[in-house]
């Protein structure tokens, strides 16, 4: 293996090491410490000038107390569960909306496609925060949506949407749908149209060709899209705190409270570590499954 290859090969690993693994280890370390009234607000802190003795002493002070604490209060598992539920349902809705859009885009005339693509990306030109804020104006009691529905005569009384979980779903689906559309669109455009022709030649109906060829071949795009929506939605803080009500339980809000209201960085660290585990397990299972299938093919 020449030097150039090793270099190219190592870039993603250095990236992961510096920007994912190292910060994770720092958070893990904080989650094993104890709260303190100091700068920074936890103890022990590692002082490398103390040499090996200080290093050993440092490790002897770490413990899993914060993790057992999380297990002792129902608030935490209820918040994790509620976050997983909100993220799952939002991902499903995004898929239901995103797939037809991506399919339509991929089947649109070639010269339209750049414009359609631009339209999907266009919302990103406005700050995420401003878009969520403007949803407040749309969803509130006397907001545009309610006024429109009242004008149409569909409803007699304004609907209470803002400050409920409904608003959180609307916010997440609206914000993350482009992340579902783009990877699916990418796989659909690469789809070999001759496969569909062959299927129809062999007597397959258009619907069953869709289910037997288009959907399986766009699987990688669907999975990538689902991950891109599910992962940020799970830890989402801005949307539930601006659009949700006080009864909306999400782990991002719990994390904020631990960090800011309780000033308890160690417990906040433990909450974050468990959140990461929840995210990593499905990803690892998926990768294993993929590998097995690859081996089976060989």
């Amino acid at each position, binding site marked *: 293996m020449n030097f150039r290859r090793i270099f190219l090969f190592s870039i993603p690993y250095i990236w992961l090491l510096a920007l994912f693994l190292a910060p994770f280890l720092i958070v893990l370390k904080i989650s094993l410490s104890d*709260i303190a009234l*100091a*700068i920074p*607000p936890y103890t022990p802190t590692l002082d490398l000038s103390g040499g090996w003795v200080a290093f050993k002493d440092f490790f002897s002070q770490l413990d899993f107390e914060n993790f057992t604490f999380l297990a002792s209060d129902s*608030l935490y598992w209820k918040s994790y569960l509620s976050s997983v539920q909100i993220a799952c349902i939002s991902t499903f809705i995004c898929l239901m909306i995103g797939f037809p859009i991506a399919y339509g885009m991929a089947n649109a005339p070639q010269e339209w496609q750049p414009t359609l693509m631009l339209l999907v990306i266009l919302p990103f030109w406005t700050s995420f925060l401003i878009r969520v804020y403007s949803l407040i104006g749309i969803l509130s009691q006397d907001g545009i949506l309610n006024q429109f529905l009242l004008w149409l005569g569909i409803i007699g009384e304004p609907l209470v949407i803002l*400050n409920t979980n409904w608003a959180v779903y609307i916010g997440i689906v609206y914000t993350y749908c482009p992340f579902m559309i783009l990877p699916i669109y990418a796989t659909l455009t690469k789809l070999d149209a001759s496969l569909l022709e062959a299927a129809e030649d062999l007597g397959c109906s258009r619907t069953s060709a869709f289910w037997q060829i288009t959907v399986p071949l766009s699987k990688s795009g669907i999975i990538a899209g689902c991950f891109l929506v599910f992962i940020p939605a799970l830890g989402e803080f801005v949307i539930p705190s601006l659009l949700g009500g006080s009864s909306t339980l999400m782990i991002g809000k719990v994390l904020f409270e631990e960090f800011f209201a309780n*000033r308890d960085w160690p417990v906040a660290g433990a909450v974050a570590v468990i959140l990461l585990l929840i995210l990593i397990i499905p990803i690892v299972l998926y990768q294993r499954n993929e590998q097995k299938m690859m081996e089976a093919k060989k």
Partner: protein
Amino acid sequence: MNYTKSSIVFAAVIMSAQMAWAEEVRVYNWSDYIDEDLLSKFEEESGYKLIYDVFDSNEVLETKLLAGGSGYDVVVPSGTFLQRQIMAGAFQKLDKSMLSNMGNLWDVVQDRTDTYDPDGAYSINYMWGTTGIGVNVAKVTEILGEDAPIDSLALVFDPANMEKLAECGVYFLDAPGEIVPAALQYLGEDPDSKDLDVLAKAEPLLAAVRPYVLKYNSSEYISALANGDICVAFGWSGDILQSRDRAAEADNGVEIAYSAPSEGALMWFDQMAIPVDAPNPTGAHAFLDFIMDPENMATASNYVYYANGNLASQPLLEEDVIGDTAIYPDAKTLETLYITTPYDAKVQRFVTRMWTRVKSGT
């Protein structure tokens, strides 16, 4: 020759850039909390370049300070937060030889802020106020009758009143450190109690009125009250007075009144202090001295409708500030006001958890 010349110019540019860096003063204050003309006035008078940044919660400020290296020269925490941050070693002692205007401070306020910062070793008072009740007078008297207890905690803690008020909308501050002491005061307990059994008594009271509270939020009530969207807000004095003025300006027929509850109200203080790692402590002292100038302090109070801790500024205050008992309470009301001290980590966790349970039912 040219080479030497250009390198001298280059070095001079670098040096002046560095000097410009050293001559900056970075101030981190609450949002909507100063007359912005004062900022340019400070720059003109002192020659420093002022970088003025704002926050909207003590928690955000505290987290920046405790993380270290905030880069600010002057910050403005409230009393209880200040006290805890002093204990954590977040501030440097003031050099009073650099603060010629120190003598302008008001002893009535200083006596109270000494609880948080004995002898004002680390901080000076910027402004202070109370936590109380703002009402839309017409709507509340329409619902509860002419003798509605608008100056009593019973208005917001008696479920019988709250059930009726729910139809016109009630907001509470989303700040357990303000609401829990008020609940204890209403129950006749010590509002500054750190006893978990005493604190727990607040929960059934808060839970009983929970169904009638439209929202827990610490900033939206200003416009909601002014627009007539809600009729009662449990909030901070100056914010409610700002909403009163907004309604008056809009001339929308909404009349807002603020009262510090007759049972006693929480009195809070926002203190200016200098972080231990401030890049420019000399500039920070210059800013504090500028703020303690009676004329400047009066300009700020006349603009934001909060009382200040500067006795010398009082003759310069406008009549609708100094003469308003909602801003400068009379001696009798002043006696009923109470102050609180910080919770330790264990009590804080208990209170935050209770607050989450009250709000979300979980």
